[in-house]
Structures are given as C-alpha cells and as structure tokens.
C-alpha cells in the first residue's frame, strides 16, 4: 500500500511533477530511516556497554570485598596487641635495661683510611701483587744466601 503511494505508477514518467514529488518524499523517508537507524544503533550500543560496565562494577565490588577481608585480617594480625602476644609466644620479653654504646668520637677513631687503601683492586692486580711478592721472596732469599745474618746458636750441652 505504501509502495503504491510513493513509487511511480506504471506508465508514469519519473520526471513528471507527480514523480518529482514522490522522489522527494522517498528521499525524506530514506533520511528519516537513516536517522532512526543511527539512533537505534547508538542506543543499543549504549545499553550493551552499560550492561558490561555494570557487570565489571559487580566484579570490582566482589574484588573490593575480598581485598577488604584480607586487609582486616592483616590489620588484626599486625595490631600492636597481636604482635606483642606473638612476640611473647616466641619467647621475647620486654627489655629490663637498655644499654647505650659510646662510640669513640676522637679524631683518630674517626680518621678515614687513605683512599688507596680502600680502593678495590683492578682487574689483574691480584695476580700482579702475587707476582711481586714472589719476586720479593726470591730476592730476599738470594740476599740472605749472599750475606747470611749471624744468629746466636745455642750449642747443646753448653756449660
């Protein structure tokens, strides 16, 4: 019925005045349909997203409730009274006397060792030091062999 109203009739030229009017009506109808289509699509999407948000909200609330429960347990366990009780169970007792240590604040005690002494050995340094010590040992033995130092010798059966 609607098609009969708006579509060109048999034998009627689409460019006749009646045909032009019908074309305009068709155009308006199409635009209206497009508008409704877009509105419905948007509204539908929003409704779906709203549902998803609500579901996620629900999950979030469940997680928040779980978190709160865990926090309550942690807080109860870390409360000073609970910690004190636990410490006593483990054998700790309140300190009877607090002793303070006097640190030597004299300049000598506070003197910082030279930087060279604190410097970490570079790569290969340990080996070089070992080598130098070995040479030092050889040289000292050689020197001792060349010029032996006189040692007091205790003769057995001395008077």
């Amino acid at each position, binding site marked *: 019925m609607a*098609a009969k109203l708006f579509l*060109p009739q*048999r*034998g009627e030229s689409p460019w006749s005045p009646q045909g032009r009017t019908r074309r305009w009506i068709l155009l308006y*109808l199409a635009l209206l349909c497009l508008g409704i289509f877009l509105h419905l699509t948007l509204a539908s999407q929003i409704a779906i997203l709203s549902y998803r948000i609500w579901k996620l909200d629900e999950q979030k609330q469940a997680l928040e409730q779980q978190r709160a429960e865990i926090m309550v347990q942690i*807080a109860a366990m870390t409360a000073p009274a609970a910690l004190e009780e636990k410490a006593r169970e483990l054998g700790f007792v309140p300190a009877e006397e607090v002793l303070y240590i006097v640190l030597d604040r004299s300049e000598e005690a506070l003197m910082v060792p030279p930087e060279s002494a604190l410097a970490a050995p570079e790569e290969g340094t340990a080996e070089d030091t070992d080598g130098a010590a070995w040479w030092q040992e050889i040289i000292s033995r050689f020197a001792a062999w060349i010029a032996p130092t006189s040692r007091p010798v205790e003769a057995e059966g001395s008077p």
Partner: protein
Amino acid sequence: MEDVSAIKLQRQPRRRLALLFTALVGVMLILAARLFYWQVLSPEDVVPQQEAQSGVRGEILDKHRLRIVINRFEYDISAAPSEIENVERTAQQLDPYLSLSMEEILERIRDREQRYALLAQGLSAAQKDGIMALGLPGIHATARPRRFYVLGEEAGHVAGFVNWELKGAYGVEGYYDELLQGVSVSRSGGFLINPHHFASARDGYDLVLTLDGTIQHMVAQVLQEAVERYQADGGTIIVMDPRSGAIWAMVNYPSFDPNEFATTSQELYVNPAISHQYEPGSVLKVTTVAAALDAGAIALDTTYEDTACMTVVGATICNWDRIAHGTTTITETLQHSLNVGAVHYVMALGPERLYRYMEAFGFGQLTGVDLANEVAGMVRTPDTPDWSLVDLATNSFGQGIATTPLQVVVAIAAVANGGRLMKPYVMERAVAPDGTVLQTQPTVVRQVVSPQVAREVTRMLVAVVEGEVTKAAVPGYSVAGKTGTAQIPDPEKGGYEPHATIVSFVGYAPSYDPRFIVLVKIDRPHVPRGSEVAAPVFKTVAEWLLAYLAIPPDHFQMASR
C-alpha cells in the same frame, strides 16, 4: 518485444525501492527488538532500577602508616519468597547458619506474596560465603560497608566511630567526617539513559595521624593496670610532643570498642581527655609561678615566710600537710607543693594579670584540637558574679577552676617548649585518592612566657622530681614534672567530696630538650596522693618512651654535644 523490455525497465526501480524499503524496515525492527530487550524488558540483573554508588570512606593510619581504621563489609542475608522453589528444604539448609529458629525462618520465607524477607544482618564474609555456597534460589546477600577499628578499646575515644548511616561521630571520625566520606552519586536505570551513569563517585581522603599505635597500646596497658591496682574509677594518659603539639597517644580508661558501638553505653562515647572537666589541683602552681616570674611580680630569689595557713578575706587556706615551712623559696614551694606559697605569688601578681596569663595558657577556652566534642573548661574571673579574692587564691593552686586534661598538657607543654603555646593536633596529613596532600603544620598559638622564665621553671620542676617526687624520676635522665591532687566538687551538697580526689602528674623529659610530655590522671584512687599514684605511672611510661624513642641518658647526650 519492445513493450516487454520497456515494462521491465519501468518495473526495475519499483522493485529495487521496495526491496530497499523492506530491508530498512527489517533492520529497524531488529534494532528496536534489541533495544526493547535491553531497556524495556530490563531483566533485573541487566539494568538495576535504582543504584547508588558511594565513594569509599578514607582509611585512618597512625604516624608509622599502620592502619588503625579500615573498611570492611558486613553482609545481610535476605530471601525473595516468590523465587524459592522448596520452602521446607531451604529453611532446613539455612537453619545451621542463622540465629533464627526453624519456625522463624519458615515464617519469613513462606509468604510468597512478600517480595523481601530479611533473614540475617551483620554477617562476616565467611558466614555469607557459607550460606551462598548452598546455592539456594531466592536467597540473596547484600554487602554493607562498615568500619574496622584495629586498636579497638585502646583508641576508641580518638578514633570515634561511624553510625549505621556511615556518618562519623566522635573522635577523628566525627571531626573529619566530610573529608573521610568522599562523594557519592546515585544512578537511575530504566528507559532513560541517565548522564549519572557516566559520573563516578569520589573516594574520601586517607588520614595519617600523629598517633603512634605502639605508644597508644603500651599506654593503654599501663593505664588499665594502674586503675585496677589503685582501685580507681578511671583515668587518662596523654602523650604529646611539646615542640609541635602533635599528640602521640591519648588513652582513657574505661574506654569503649568502636567496633561494638551499638552495644556500648552512650556515656562512654565521650572522650574524657577533651570533654571532661576537673579541677587540676597543684599542677597549676607551675603556670602560677611562670606567670608571676614572667610578669616580674616575683624574682627567682623571692622567699616568703610559710606559716602553714593564711587567711584571705575571711577564708583560711592551708598547705596540704598543714606544716609551717618557714622561709621558703619558689623551688621549695613547688617541691613541697605549698598552697600558701602559691597564694603569696598570686597576690603579688594580682587578678588582672593572673587571668590574662591563664587565658594565655589556654584555660577556659578550646585548645582547637582536631577531635569532636571538645569543651572549653571554666575560669571564674573578676567579671563573673560572686567572684572574690578567695577565687584568686584557690585558682593559684588549681582549685575553683575547671580544665580538661588536654588543656593542662598544652599549658605545661608551653613551659617545656620555651614559653611557646602550641596548638595540639592529631591529624598529620590527609591524602586524597589523586595524591593531593593536606599537611598539618605545627602552629604556635602565642608566646606565653619568656624562654628564660620557661627555662627557670623547668629547672625548678627538675628539682621537684629529684628532690621530692622521686617516684617519677628516671635514672640517668633529667625529668621535670609536678604532681596534682585535687578535691572533687560535690554538685549536690556543695563544697567538695570529703575523701575522693583526682590525682595527676604531668612531666616531660629530657628536661633541657623535651621530646615528650606526659599527663597521668587517675580518678578517685584509694591512695589519694599524686606522688604515690600518678608519679610511678608516669615513670613507667617515661622510662618506656625513652627506650622506645632511643633517647640516650643525659650524660651521653652531654658528651655528644
């Protein structure tokens, strides 16, 4: 042939347009149906009809970030009778989990025309999980946000509580209610798409207090033990940093557990440390002496002839020991806590200057502490009807004046702090969910007395502890302090109760660089003397604090200077 093809050509646009029209109508119908499903049919679990989203209430932490007030959930269990398939079996399965009898459960869930029946309130998560694990149709759990007060009774008065509507009352919860509660939004479901769907609630600020949970716990234990040992009615201990006014501990006994506020007597909600007034007694001789010295009414070497009693406009005022001490110095007046000496000094000072100093020390006015329900106390001045010189005389040793324990601590802390009166506070900072921080800065209210006078009075108070109140002395440390033993006014008969007293001791250490000030107040102990009851309690607290704060003995500190 030509006619047939012409007719076909004429028919083609008609068919196409009809096809297009039908397709469009089809798509619209599908979309309309979808929209009808989501928004009109609106199954209960798809679009809630009315939903309120609350901002999460902020938590409260102590100075070491230990959580002392946190959020938790309680659960209500309800039934939708119309959804229940088998009433008897449901009741049988619920029976072990509920406090209701089988008959009561049946009575509540049998009426299928009833939409909702409450079965249990305030269940824990474990209890709720147990019931929901049964998987019974028509049984629902609703979470209700509540608060959990970790320190329980130990910090009941400082924390306060929130009522069933999550409105803060008393303590920090009451004072900072707006900051803590955040912003809530309400959502409406149904046909219309509500812009509130896209607005989110804002959580409240987290508060970091100056309170130290460990000190609070220790002090609470000491106070309870003292009240029980001396068979007292109750007591209060306040620990404060005199340099900043930060309150580290505030304990009263008896107290109440905010987790059980609904079953607590309302009288216990009130924080005696800030809301109960008492006559402080001899503790106030400290401010009297400081005022007289600062005003130049007396000098450090002033002496008077102590005759045990003296008469002021017809009223006889005597020392507590009724002994004539002869020529007495200011230090000796404080050491022996002589009322006659205090009256001598206040007569030299005069009423106008005394009350000006009393106001400067903060008596008769709110300290401004950030806790709900503080009271101002009461000072009778020459403007008050019936005021006489007797009031002036009795005020000098802390009688005829009503103060709160916190006012006394703040006033004596001014002497400890070089004469500067600090505003006491319990909130160190408030942290918003977005990280914005509101920091409390220590506030100097005013300079009450000069630093020199404060130093001299401190020296006298050290002599009090070392020479007279040795039960407050901590070996190795210089401690300054003063006892107070006050009679209790009898509002019914007038005058004072014959035997009851409120004993107190306020002291600070190390005296030359005070790190803490402690007030110990015990109500109606069976031994009615501050030096016998409150001083030993002070010593216990001070000794522990010195170790806890790792403050080495005096000679170590002197050596390191």
